[in-house]
């Protein structure tokens, strides 16, 4: 029999659905299926069991299926269909497949990923940083810096507000993971709303969302540690955060002598303080040492204190006012031994061994007031910063030299940055004005020794003033095209005074002058669906005037420079994007090029920074990168390759003058090529509570240095790998973490090769023997090897922690193996170094913590 009824191509089935005793079944689902068993039409029986199923397709329906919870499904094939059907359904026990899905670990909303903290949190976690380390796609390095898909984040928000202005470690290293409900990642985040779709950003931002019941009241902790380590040790911590709807406050007070440092590694390396061209502050790196990749608390004997006060208010409209005041004071001591192999211009290596005991006293005060209005139409920001830093360094040195080396430095910086953006329907106007003043009134190097050739007193003081003015106009030609012009004007004034008294090398000189760079940069940008292409063609005019006071020499230069660069970003498909960038750029020298007197950076090493001629580093660069993420599978991958070829008109060489190692710079054409590839991969296997991370990087650099008056090639090849895995077992009672890193560096100089290897492994284990009782241990191993040296070290910590509601008590033993030394290998350009740091001895401590 053909279909029950076919009227003008329409299939019509009517009928009633009843149970075995004839009672009507309401809400039964009636489906019409085609020949491919696909549902083409459907209906539902009414309370009387009646149904009408109609279908307008030409091919008709092949079968009808009747189903209802509690009844066996009935199927009628084409041959069994009739104009009016009475369907009898027999009762059948309903077997429901019960499913409980744990919290969805990552939600995706366009360019926003929301990580559910509960899905990644473990009982052993102490701060939100521990959870961040586990999020696929996110990496946190040993210093606490956060990266997403291999790139550092550009903003860190708490509940959408940027209170900390980059100083986010105070939040991530203190806020409890229990207080955070989710972590959002905003990919390609443009923090200025009026520049959305105008200025492309390839950086991501992070936002912490605090649990509702932890808002509107202070949350945080108070902690006290007491212990013994040849002497009494202690640590006092207080941290509080309050999230209101329209304001946030964060207060942190800390003090300790257990090795936790607050002014960070910059207090040792003396670098990275200044954001602009203050020659003096950047130029003297007294210690000039490589630091081990282990935390400072293993080798630094310290007395440290820090106070952090941060607040932000959301004012009317889209305005915010943020105030940050930070003070850090530290007294650090550490000792090491150094074996250096320094390549000299006479084509030989000179080996130097010395032992050093360092004392560093530092104070840093930073105060910042930031006003911001940020909406889709208008952006206004004014940022006023005061940064005062004082260092006093003291080195007792034995070996190549017996004596004392001291440095005393003070630097004060004041800056104001104003920025504005106005967006209308067709145009975007930008104006920003930044002013910086840096003063280094004290920067003194003193060397004391019984031997008459070494004593020295060198003062290098500087005043620097810089302004940056930026004006930009953009024309939104259409939804696809954008054109604009950036105008930048930078002025820089420096005055550097050098005054040195030393056996046979007294020197007194002063250098001062200005540098003006005016740049006009027209650009075009096209954004077509998933493709963004931007082309910039900056044209710069350099005006420079530097004078050497002692020699009464004047240097003037007025010259134009042109560059071009481009960027292409393409979303190939959901979760997969590639970007290409390339072009040329000029990096002009500054007053450092005209400081032709050698400046001692420590008792034996002097560096001449300039030749008396301006350097212009002209680079050709290209970069290709790709990111891929599959959120549902927890897979994040990023791959980046960079190529650089730079031409400079300077070449270095080091000579041994008496006992001094003096670096000279000659005005000779040199090239530098650099290639590198970095791969980041992470995978989260939610079903087994497993996190896997991999970071691999290879690089090659080639340049030239001077040897016996001629240029010789210097090549460096480097290979780095970092792999880590975290596994949670037995319902989160056992947590295991493994990390392995490998570093190999090879130098080749005139056919002579040197290579260095470092392998290191870290393992940590946490076991909850009872619900609130945790046993924990972590072990670090290090193997190093170079041509003539190899060493193996093992370092072990262990502890027991009991947590009950808001209270925690922890017993800890650190450096149980009582390892005394830790050794690292480093290659710095053509020179090789082996540093051995003296570690803190075994220590035992008990700590109490109250969470509120």
């Amino acid at each position, binding site marked *: 029999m053909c279909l029950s009824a076919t009227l003008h191509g329409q299939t019509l089935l009517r009928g009633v659905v009843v149970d075995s005793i004839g009672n009507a079944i*309401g*809400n*039964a*689902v009636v*489906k019409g299926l085609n020949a491919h068993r*696909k*549902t*083409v039409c*459907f209906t*539902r029986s009414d*309370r009387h069991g009646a149904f009408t199923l109609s279908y307008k397709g030409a091919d008709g329906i092949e079968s009808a299926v009747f*189903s*209802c*919870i509690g009844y066996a*499904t009935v199927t009628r094939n084409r041959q069994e269909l009739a104009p009016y059907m009475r369907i009898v359904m027999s009762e059948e026990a*309903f077997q*429901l*497949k*019960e*499913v*409980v*899905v744990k*919290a*969805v670990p990552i*939600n995706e*909303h*366009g360019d*926003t990923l*929301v990580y559910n903290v509960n899905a990644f949190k473990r009982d052993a976690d102490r701060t939100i940083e521990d959870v961040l380390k586990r999020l696929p796609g996110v990496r946190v390095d040993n210093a606490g810096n956060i990266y997403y898909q291999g790139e550092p984040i550009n903003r860190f928000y708490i509940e*959408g507000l940027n209170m900390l202005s980059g100083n986010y470690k105070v939040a991530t290293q203190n806020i409890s993971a229990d207080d955070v409900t*989710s972590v*959002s990642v905003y990919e390609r985040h443009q923090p200025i709303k009026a520049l959305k779709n105008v200025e492309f950003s390839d950086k991501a931002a992070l936002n912490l969302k605090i649990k*509702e*019941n932890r*808002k*509107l009241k202070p949350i945080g902790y108070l902690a006290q540690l007491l212990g013994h380590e040849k002497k009494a040790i202690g640590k006092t911590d207080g941290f509080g955060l309050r999230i*209101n*709807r*329209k304001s946030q406050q964060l207060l942190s007070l800390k003090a300790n002598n257990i090795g936790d440092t607050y002014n960070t590694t910059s207090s040792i390396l003396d670098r990275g303080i200044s954001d602009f061209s203050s020659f003096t502050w950047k130029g003297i790196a007294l210690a000039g040492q490589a630091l081990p990749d282990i935390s400072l608390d293993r080798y630094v004997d310290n007395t440290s204190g820090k106070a952090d006060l941060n607040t932000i208010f959301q004012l009317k409209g889209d305005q915010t006012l943020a105030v940050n005041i930070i003070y850090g004071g530290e007294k650090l001591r550490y000792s090491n031994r150094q074996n250096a192999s320094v390549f000299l211009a006479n084509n030989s290596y000179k080996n130097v061994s010395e032992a050093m005991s360092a004392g560093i006293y530092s104070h840093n005060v930073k105060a910042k007031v930031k006003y911001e209005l940020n909406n889709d139409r208008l952006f206004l920001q004014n940022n006023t910063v005061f940064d005062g830093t004082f260092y006093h360094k003291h080195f007792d040195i034995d070996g190549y030299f017996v004596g004392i080396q001291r440095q005393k430095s003070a630097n004060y910086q004041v800056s104001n940055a104003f920025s504005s953006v106005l967006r209308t329907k067709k145009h975007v106007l930008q104006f920003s004005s930044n002013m910086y003043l840096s003063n280094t009134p004290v920067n003194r190097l003193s060397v004391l020794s019984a031997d008459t050739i070494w004593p020295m007193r060198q003062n290098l003081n500087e005043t620097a003033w810089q302004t940056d003015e930026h004006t930009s106009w953009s024309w939104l030609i259409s939804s696809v095209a954008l054109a604009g012009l950036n105008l930048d004007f930078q002025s820089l004034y420096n005055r550097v005074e050098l005054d040195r008294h030393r056996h046979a090398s007294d020197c007194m000189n002063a250098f001062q002058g200005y540098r003006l760079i005016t740049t006009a940069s027209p650009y075009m940008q096209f954004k077509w669906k998933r493709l963004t292409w931007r082309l910039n063609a900056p044209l710069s005019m350099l005006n420079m005037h530097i004078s050497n006071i002692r020699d009464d020499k004047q240097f003037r230069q007025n010259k134009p420079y042109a560059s071009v660069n481009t960027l292409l970003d393409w979303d190939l498909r959901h979760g997969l994007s590639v970007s290409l960038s390339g072009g040329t750029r000029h990096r002009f020298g500054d007053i450092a090029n005209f400081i032709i007197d050698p400046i001692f950076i420590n008792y034996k090493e002097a560096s001449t920074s300039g030749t008396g001629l301006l350097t212009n580093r002209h680079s050709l660069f290209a970069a290709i990168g790709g990111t891929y993420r599959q959120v549902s599978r927890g897979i994040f991958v990023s791959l980046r390759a960079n190529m650089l070829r730079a031409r400079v008109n300077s070449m270095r060489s080091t000579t041994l003058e008496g006992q001094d190692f003096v670096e000279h710079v000659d005005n000779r054409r040199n090239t530098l090529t650099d290639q590198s590839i970095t791969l980041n991969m992470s995978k989260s296997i939610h079903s087994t509570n497993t996190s896997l991370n991999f970071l691999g990087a290879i690089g090659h650099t080639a340049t030239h240095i001077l040897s016996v008056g001629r240029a010789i090639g210097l090549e460096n090849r480097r290979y780095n790998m970092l792999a880590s895995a975290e596994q949670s077992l037995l319902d989160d009672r056992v947590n295991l973490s493994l990390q392995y890193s490998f570093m190999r560096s090879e130098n080749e100089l005139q056919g002579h090769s040197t290579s260095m290897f470092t392998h290191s492994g870290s393992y940590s284990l946490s076991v909850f023997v009872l619900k609130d009782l945790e046993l924990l241990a972590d072990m670090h191993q290090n193997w190093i090897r170079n041509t003539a040296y190899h060493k193996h070290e093992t370092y072990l910590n262990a502890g027991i922690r009991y947590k009950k509601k808001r209270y925690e008590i922890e017993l800890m033993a650190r450096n149980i193996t009582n390892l005394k030394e830790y050794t690292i290998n480093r290659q710095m350009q053509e020179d090789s170094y082996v540093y051995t740091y003296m570690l803190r001895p075994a220590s035992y401590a008990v700590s109490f913590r109250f969470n509120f």
Partner: protein
Amino acid sequence: MFNSVYIFPLIVYDMRDTAKYIVMKTIALGIALCALFPAMMMGQKVTITGSYAETVAKLGIPKVVGTSNMECIYEYKVFDPVLQDTEVSYDILEVGDSVYKYGKYGSYQLDSALAYRPNIIVRDYTNLRNKYRPKPEYLITNRLTDSLTYYGKVSIDNFSYEEPVPSINWTLTDSTKMVCGYECHQATCTFRGRTWTAWYCDLPLSIGPWKLHGLPGMILAAEDASKEQSFTAITIRKAARNITVADRDYFKTKRERYNKSLAAYKEDPGKVFRVGPLAPKTLDGKPMKVEKARMFYNPLEKE
């Protein structure tokens, strides 16, 4: 966010037995409006102390409208384009033979906790409310009458409206995906101003989250085209418990009118308190300033 508001009826109920009911109600409202209004706006949790906190909470007895035999918990995610913020909450669909209830999971949890504590004191009750943060918004679908009743709240007033179960014109497509362990098929529709993509499974129940229904299987996931609203089933389980509605006095209204009032309230929650006899005043009788502060809001229904 509404905790402070919800506690007011509790205070009022407790006063009913006293001779000073009228006076106390006025005082309670006065305190509520003047002192707790800022807290209400800020979502602060409520703490009640003193002897009143130790008294037995007098709660209304919920009205049973059916019995569930199955439950489905959905993760409901909504993005507010004005505040540029996303909120994630959990809803539960209680499935009976002919009555379905769709409401907030927090309210369901609170009801479950209260079921075993008939003589709960005010302090414990307040703590439970702070813990589960219930929201008295739910809808009851009655398949016998083909009607849908929505219960909600605007400011401190309870409202309900009734409408026929809306007809939704679905288009079935070929795509399939797994949701909550079930193989689901895709269907699309336009319903009250939003274009939805839904995923339904083979469970023969023509129901789904919120007012979405009418497919040949239970809807386990749905997302609107703007990606501002989404429902995803995270738990499906058997059940055997009463489906109830709260015993409250509801103002009857129309759907359109309710949606309009709710939108106006969310846009400026302090507006209703700025004028009229309930306007908060300082001790010397001067009117207190109530700031305009838009609340998180993005309606499911645009029409």
